[in-house]
């Protein structure tokens, strides 16, 4: 079991939803309107007058074999336009109830 945390520009919402559907990922937690700033480059997403755009974030806990296809899709989305922005981070789940 791995946790995948995807944070993305709101503008990618429909694509992200489609990926989850397509890969039959049922469970996730979703945060709308998340502020954030990239570590290297890209515009901050602050929802202010200066930086009006906003991110959304989702966390999904999936079996190990699903991680690779998911990351692949995320990369494809990112490729459409780097400026818009989508990132995924994966970490281990040691236990769950």
């Amino acid at each position, binding site marked *: 079991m791995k946790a995948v945390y995807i944070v993305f520009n709101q*503008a*990618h919402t*429909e694509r992200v939803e489609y990926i989850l559907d397509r890969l039959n990922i049922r469970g996730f937690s979703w945060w709308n309107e998340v502020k954030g700033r990239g570590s290297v480059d890209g*515009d901050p997403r602050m929802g202010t007058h200066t930086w*009006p*755009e906003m991110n959304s974030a989702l966390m999904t806990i999936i079996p190990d074999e699903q991680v690779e296809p998911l990351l692949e899709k995320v990369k494809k989305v990112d490729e459409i*336009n780097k400026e*818009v922005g989508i990132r995924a981070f994966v970490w281990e789940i040691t236990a769950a109830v």
Partner: protein
Amino acid sequence: MSIYKTAVNKPISTFMVFTAVIVMGIYSFIKIPIDLYPEIDPPFLSVMTSYAGASAADIETNITKRLEDALNSVDKVKEVQSVSSDNLSVITLEFSWGANLDEATNEVRDVIDRIYDFMPEGADRPSIFKFNTSMMPIVFYAITAKESYPGLDKLLEEKIINPLNRVEGVGSVSMIGAPKRVVYVDADPRRLDAYNISIEQIGNVIAAENLNMPSGNIKMGEMDYQLRIQGEFSESSELINLVVGNFNGTPVFLRDVAIVRDSLKDLSLDEKINGQRGLRMFVMKQSGANTVKVAREVNKNLEILKKNLPPDVEINLIIDTSSFIKGSIKNLSETLLWAFLFVVLVVLFFLGRWRATFIIGLTIPISLIVSFIYLFLTGNSINVISLTSLSIAIGMVVDDAIVVLENITKHIERGNSPREAAIYATNEVWLSVIITTLVVVAVFFPLTLVGGLTGEMFNQLGWIVSITVVTSTMAAITLTPMMASRIMKLREKKIKPKKFSFQSTIEPLLNGLDDYYESLLRWSLKHKTLIIILSLTVFVSSLMLMKFVGTDFMPQTDESRITVAIELQTGTRVEETMKIARKMERIVRERYPEIEIMAASSGSDDAGSMFSLFSTAGSNIINMMMRLQHVNDRQRTVWEIADDMRQQIAQIPEIITATVSTSGGGMGMGGDNTVDVEIYGFDFNTTNKLAEEIKLKLSKLPEATDITVSRKNDKPELQVILDKDKIALHGLNTAVVSTMIRNRISGTVTSRFKEEGDEYDIRVRLAEQFRSSITDLEELTILNPMGKKIKLKEIGNIEEYWGPPAIQHKRKERIVTVKAKPNGVSLGELAKKVNLVVNDVKVPQEVLIQVGGAYEDQQESFMDLALLMLLSLILVFIVMASQFESFTMPFIIMFSIPFAFTGVILALLITGTTLSVVAALGAVLLIGIVVKNGIVLVDFTNLMRDRGMKLYEAIVVSGRSRLRPVLMTALTTILGMLPLALSTGEGSEIWRPMGITVIGGLVFSTLVTMVLIPVMYGILAKSGERDKVMKIRKKFQTLD
């Protein structure tokens, strides 16, 4: 869920909502009446009191003064004016605009009730008369006839007037100058004396003979008969065979002592149409009816009714007020269409996308149509003001849609799906879109609060622009994203664009412009002082130019009609007046081929028709009405013709004063622009002398023309002064003698001749040759109760005398007004000159002189507008300060306003337009339009700085990036107004100044602000923004 998200997610609902709006708009559009101006109830009430037999001076002291004193206390009365003439007192109360006249009428009635007991016995109860614009005639016809002329009155009454009265919306139809049938019995006084018969006797005999009398019932057998005695004349010729008396046992017939004429009434009003005998007919509409519709119906019906008339009767249209309205409205509608086309072209030029242009263009009809709903709900009409408002709005309603769509396009080009791009892009800009709209509303909304005449006229403009702009914003954040999400798509960049595609033609051009602007900005930022000095010089020198711009109240319009009022020596008999009228007609026919039809009336209609309320009449007055060819079909303007006509009139020595007027005589707001010199003072001689002196001085001014004095010359009168002792000796009294004189001169009507249901007066009096000199008067025979014949000269003598004129009051004081019209100069300039003249005149202590007239209205309106401007400036500042959360930013942006005024002054000077109320209003509106550009620019610069750019870099980058949107919104507004400024058709004079001021101001201020505002930003924003980071560091020093 936000409104734009809902709109995008529910496209059908959104579409339906806007469809509903459009459907309602179209429904309203069909229902709204069309008129020239918004319906303005002039706030006037008149109180008329008649007191038979009193002279002007008696009326003044006994009636007018008392009423004036009492009426002055009525609530909201602004000014009280009055005219006291023989037998009649007319007091006009002027209220503040927008006052409730119904309430005022009640209050006036209360006052009259209170005062009535203190008025002289013989005075009638004062009647209140409410003036209404709908009382002005809307169509005038000239009717000429040859053989049918004598019976024209009856013919028209039956065949034309009665059917026309049935047309919906027609208030009344009346005639001027219609020939009236009268049966005259012209007696010979010598024969009367010889046969011992008096005029009264003849009258009594006629009354006694011309009689039908029911005399009861008679029962015979099974029947019940009515008994009647039929004595009425069936032919007027029966009259001559009446026995009027006995002389030495033989009967004296009427034919022995008098001539009977069944004829037309003696001339007191002569009406000629194009020099032919005829009359004028005019139609008044019901209050609230649609002028254009009523005029159309009347014309249509008349075409059908004409066929029932004899072939020699001709009906021609002289004045159709609706044609000017229709022309103006058509003209403005065309203007609107052109504006629409220009705006769409500008959008297409800058965006280069058909679909985007379509989406933006769609907001125009939707926003505009909402204003029709407003007009319908408030019961207003489509008029020049409302259509001009739409013209102003048309360039502004696309701005919001442009901003929203531009951002959506940016998102789509980044590869987002149109639907998401629409939602998120709108989310980013919707607030700033609303704020720019607020700025515009901050300028236009105060217009709805302005009082006075200006307010009455321009409230509509304020409402319409506010409503359309707000609607356009609503559409921009709902309809625009929805449409964009549906029809916009990612456009692939072509590697090799076609030769004539947007990318290879216009885009390089725009890019070049961007580059040039960028380098210009960099240069200016290095030469800030130079730029500031340069702009200051430009502004100050433009203020110097201001004094060359004339001022006016309302622009005059070429309504293709001229009315001339000519006054001859007071007391001139109508036959003489007619001769001058014929002379004028000849001049007009020879010199002015542009005049299509002309009606001239000389003298007055003693019946006192409705029409005489609106024009002065008298036996020495000629009123002429002329219709010219359509504006586009003639070389000379109406003013050139009028000027020439004034010169021609000046060459006729018999004419004392003449006014040549080119406006519709109060039909609209245009009216006559006059400067009035008001002379207050009690003594007639002093004030008359002053008035003459001022008139003489004014007539020497080349700037003044058509100078008239309100107080008419004294009227020549003949007075019979009776010797009281002598009449008493003969057993007579003044009442008996005066009745007898009246019967002999004016005539006595004791009976009426009936024919086909109509009644005609039978008037008995002396034949004309026996009552046309003082000697004839002296020879009048008066019968005393004993039947003795006494000559008038035995009991009194006849003296020539000059009767006092009508006495005018203003603010309860006697007043004489000298009016002057500007001649080739502006009203303001003339007022200045007149003031100089008046200051030169030596004024006695008890006399007060003031300069007023349209000039006064103009000053009042300019004061209103100045207040409005102040209010707008404050509101705009408030909106901006709260948007930027700063006092500096609004200050920087407002630097563009002075240059808008520079542009206005230049535009007015170049086009030779005067600063009228309309032009001044345009200047006020500029505040909102100009500031918008600055907001866009400064907002973006702030953004760039917040994103960490250096000051100058931020200025240059944002300048370059905002150049196109600023140019685009400015160009849409400018080109939207261009047709307004260029139009030359009917009525264009009213709104052209507004187009000119807005375009001039906007062009100039856009050019200047694109350089000056970045420079000012560079100077003023320096310290504040740079230290932000340092400040925060200081705040959290302890953490380091």
